[in-house]
């Protein structure tokens, strides 16, 4: 079959990203021709600022080298200008670098012509020494001028202007930034932050002239520009004038071809122009009235556009919320959303001039709509996420402005400004990944997403506590190109585009009863999924349809299949259950006997008040379990995404301070929840008085006895991200603890995403939501509690099930070795 012909005009980041996405999903559909006006392959335009500042070289910022085009069979014309689109004959007519005319036919045309800098219509704007700041050529010219001349003037104090000014100042020039408004970066910053930024830049040697209207650029004796004159009559010496007063979508070619343009080439949600064969992405496109000048939205456009070019016809681009970060070393500025102070918005402001910190958070209807951060921007990514997810922040409003402890968790405290970290600093403590390794991988492989960085470096791919830090490094390395994923809509894994929420809903709505059925119904892209999605799907099926869905052992992680915890050397650890942390001489004797009989090298008391036997060979497990069963002991599920332990203090049974019988209640709770699978592990604690010896404050459900009953706390976590449990409600007696606690857990089981702890679930859905279902509606609470009990009824201890093995050995086969 004849391949379709795709021609792309423009060789920049948005266009080439579209081709990359296209090659991923339909590598053989098109013969591709690319015209690029610049003599360079695709490079990261955002990083021209660090190049100008001397922090990077052109080589560092190339994203796709010539070999990439060759490897993908792309016909590349560099230095070629497209002069005409002949829509009637569907061809593009260009002039090559050597002056020849090239005509190429197309079936689909992709316009990625980018934008052109706005040049002020003033006398002298075409003098030598007057440039804009857009491409490698401009950058080279500035570097060259900096070596030979003294005075530079930058017109426009936006993101680009300030980065240009900073670069020129670092190269030794005397730089004045000229700006129309009252304060700098007025589109991205409010007045206070703008003034703070100005002061910081002045301290670095930059000068500013605000409220300045440029009248003309004056020609010197050499013919080069020598001064800039303002409307008020004043003037400044200038050997180099850099215009950074905004950009205009580059639409000349499209307009000439009669394609509808209006401040950009007008496209619909599929990035298609008014000519159905012609698509447009990037800065040249006007989508729903906006032409984006930042790179992150362009990548989203690229993905959607590629999907439609591949004739798959799914995916819509619905616009982006953008954030801004200034790339000037040593100065941290971040802004996102709307902070203009529109009606109905409220501000939370933290301003410490002494420390040079300013944070302004703009709220509307309990949602974050804008943020401006100066000096301390480490929470920028977090605020941006809240903003994009439109999360209700009612519950966290009181500490919202102080940021989130996502960053700088265990081991990273005080070290959270990624840009200032040395390359040798360890970022990911689990996998031993240093900052330098991450930066190198980002540059060498052209990575833009957290997922990519995880794949290539393993950083933040284990416990995830350094995720915020890795995101920061990514943001500071690729600049504005980094866009955190929309956490609520993130695809489960590479096997599907659907999110956890989508999958849960489909399983519920369509009564999908097995992993395989779910994959088939939802058109999984891989034959049997992967190690990420299969355990999630299995959990979703069995938790949504208890006693009906098929629990697939091969879709469970080995620990849940072998009912023991795999260790680094391939041996297992075995933890028998001790209800509520209570044991007996008989049980202890059984444990001691087993430890000796199976030559267990390590016996350890766990944090969950029980005993761990470490270093057991897999083939010994069934026999060991049989021994425990004879002593009346069951699996402790220390290996599962399931109920782990209910920790207790001695309580009123013995303690002179105890107000409630905590051991009693702990045992009852643990028996109620025995065998419960959940999105992640679940730990409980019951303390008999507010001294809280069972550490209820860091448990998924923490119960604290008081004289008049119990207080319930939820969403605590003592692990990766230490999170203090939040007060949930006060109840009168043991039965109510079980009903309220059980209802909360059931809600979490039904709504939680796989591998989401209760603290993250709580953060996502909000305390109000949980209160609505569990506290405010007694009927709903009872229903949830009953569903939990129904799901857990007739649960058989997996250890007993395996050594008794009614199936005649099939269950035990897992543990037997074939000797040859």
């Amino acid at each position, binding site marked *: 079959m004849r391949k379709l012909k795709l021609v792309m005009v423009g060789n920049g980041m948005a266009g080439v990203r579209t081709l990359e996405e296209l090659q991923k999903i339909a590598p053989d559909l098109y013969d591709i021709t690319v015209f690029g006006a610049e003599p360079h392959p695709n490079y990261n335009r955002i990083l021209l600022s660090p190049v100008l500042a001397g922090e990077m070289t052109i080589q560092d910022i190339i994203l796709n080298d010539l070999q990439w085009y060759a490897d993908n069979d792309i016909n590349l014309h560099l230095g070629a200008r497209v002069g005409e689109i002949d829509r009637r004959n569907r061809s593009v007519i260009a002039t090559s670098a050597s002056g020849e005319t090239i005509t190429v036919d197309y079936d689909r045309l992709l316009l990625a012509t980018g934008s052109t800098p706005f040049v002020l219509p003033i006398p002298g704007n075409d003098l030598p020494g007057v440039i804009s700041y857009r491409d490698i050529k401009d950058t080279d010219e500035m570097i060259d001028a900096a070596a030979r001349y003294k005075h530079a003037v930058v017109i426009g104090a936006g993101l680009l202007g300030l980065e240009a000014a900073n670069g020129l100042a670092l190269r030794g020039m005397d730089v004045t930034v000229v700006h129309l408004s009252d304060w700098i970066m007025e589109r991205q910053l409010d007045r206070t932050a703008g003034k703070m930024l100005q002061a910081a830049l002045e301290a670095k040697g930059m000068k500013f002239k605000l409220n300045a209207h440029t009248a003309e650029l004056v020609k010197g004796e050499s013919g080069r520009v020598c001064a800039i004159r303002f409307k008020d009559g004043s003037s400044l010496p200038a050997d180099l004038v850099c215009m950074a007063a905004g950009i205009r979508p580059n639409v000349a070619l499209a307009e000439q071809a009669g394609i509808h343009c209006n401040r950009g080439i007008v496209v619909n949600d599929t990035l298609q122009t008014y000519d159905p064969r012609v698509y447009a992405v990037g800065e040249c496109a006007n989508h729903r009235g906006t032409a984006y000048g930042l790179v992150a939205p362009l990548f989203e456009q690229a993905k959607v556009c590629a999907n439609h070019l591949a004739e798959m016809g799914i995916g819509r681009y619905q616009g982006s919320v953008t954030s801004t970060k200034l790339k000037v070393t040593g100065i941290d500025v971040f802004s996102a959303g709307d902070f203009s102070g529109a009606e109905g918005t409220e501000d939370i402001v933290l301003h410490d001039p002494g420390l040079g910190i300013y944070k302004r958070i703009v709220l509307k209807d309990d949602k974050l709509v804008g943020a401006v951060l100066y000096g301390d921007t480490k929470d920028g990514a977090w605020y941006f996420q809240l903003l994009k997810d439109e999360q209700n922040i009612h519950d966290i409003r009181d500490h919202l402005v102080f940021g989130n402890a996502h960053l700088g968790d265990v081991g990273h405290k005080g070290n959270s400004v990624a840009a200032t970290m040395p390359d040798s600093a360890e970022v990911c403590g689990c996998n031993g990944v240093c900052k330098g390794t991450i930066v190198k991988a980002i540059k060498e492989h052209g990575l833009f997403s957290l997922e990519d960085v995880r794949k290539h470096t393993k950083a933040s791919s284990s416990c995830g506590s350094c995720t915020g830090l890795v995101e920061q490094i990514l943001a500071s390395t690729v600049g504005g190109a980094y866009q955190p994923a929309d956490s609520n809509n993130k695809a489960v894994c590479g096997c599907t585009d659907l999110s956890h929420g989508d999958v849960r809903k489909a399983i519920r709505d369509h009564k999908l009863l097995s992993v395989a059925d779910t994959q088939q119904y939802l058109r999984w892209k891989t034959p049997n999924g992967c190690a990420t999605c*299969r355990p999630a799907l299995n959990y979703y099926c069995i938790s949504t349809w208890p006693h009906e869905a098929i629990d697939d052992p*091969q879709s469970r992680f080995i620990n849940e299949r072998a009912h023991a915890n795999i260790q680094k050397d391939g041996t297992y650890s075995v933890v028998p259950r001790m209800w509520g942390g209570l044991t007996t001489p008989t049980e202890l004797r059984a444990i001691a006997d087993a430890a000796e009989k199976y030559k267990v090298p390590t016996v350890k008391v766990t944090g969950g008040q029980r005993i761990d036997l470490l270093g057991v060979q897999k083939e010994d497990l069934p026999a060991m379990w049989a021994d425990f069963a004879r002593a009346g002991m069951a699996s402790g599920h220390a290996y599962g995404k399931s109920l782990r332990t209910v920790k207790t203090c001695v309580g009123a049974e013995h303690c002179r301070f105890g107000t409630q019988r905590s051991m009693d209640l702990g045992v009852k709770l643990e028996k109620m929840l025995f065998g419960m699978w959940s999105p992640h592990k679940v730990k409980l604690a019951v303390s008999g008085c507010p001294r809280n010896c069972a550490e209820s404050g860091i448990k998924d459900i923490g119960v604290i006895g008081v004289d008049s009953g119990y207080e319930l706390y939820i969403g605590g976590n003592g692990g990766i991200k230490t999170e203090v449990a939040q007060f949930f409600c006060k109840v009168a007696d043991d039965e109510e603890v079980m009903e309220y606690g059980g209802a909360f857990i059931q809600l979490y089981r039904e709504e939680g995403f796989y591998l989401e702890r209760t603290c993250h679930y709580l953060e996502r859905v909000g305390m109000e939501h949980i209160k609505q279902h569990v506290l405010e509606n007694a009927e709903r609470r009872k229903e949830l509690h009953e569903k939990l009990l129904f799901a857990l009824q007739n649960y058989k201890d997996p250890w007993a099930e395996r050594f008794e093995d009614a199936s005649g050995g099939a269950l035990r086969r*897992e543990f037997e070795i074939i*000797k040859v």
Partner: protein
Amino acid sequence: MNDWTLICALADVPVLGARVVESSLKGRIALFRNSADQVFAVHDKCPHKGGPLSQGIVHGSTVTCPLHSWKIQLEDGQVAAPDVGCVTPFPVKIEDGQVYMQL
């Protein structure tokens, strides 16, 4: 060299699962079966940190190591990018519902 050793019946290996075969000559070998009823055998030792591959989750013709999620392609024992490494594969065949391996 071309001797095929009878290992077990195909039915003894779970679909999308594995069995551990202990050979006096070659040590522990993981024998896998995928959803298309193909069988594969590789050394039961991940090239990363020595994890027992037999305990991993099988998908397509790949296994994900249970210790640190390296992905090993079972046809040739190569580690999937971006990680690098390989593990020794062993020839296997199915005849009359029985699995044979060349050790």
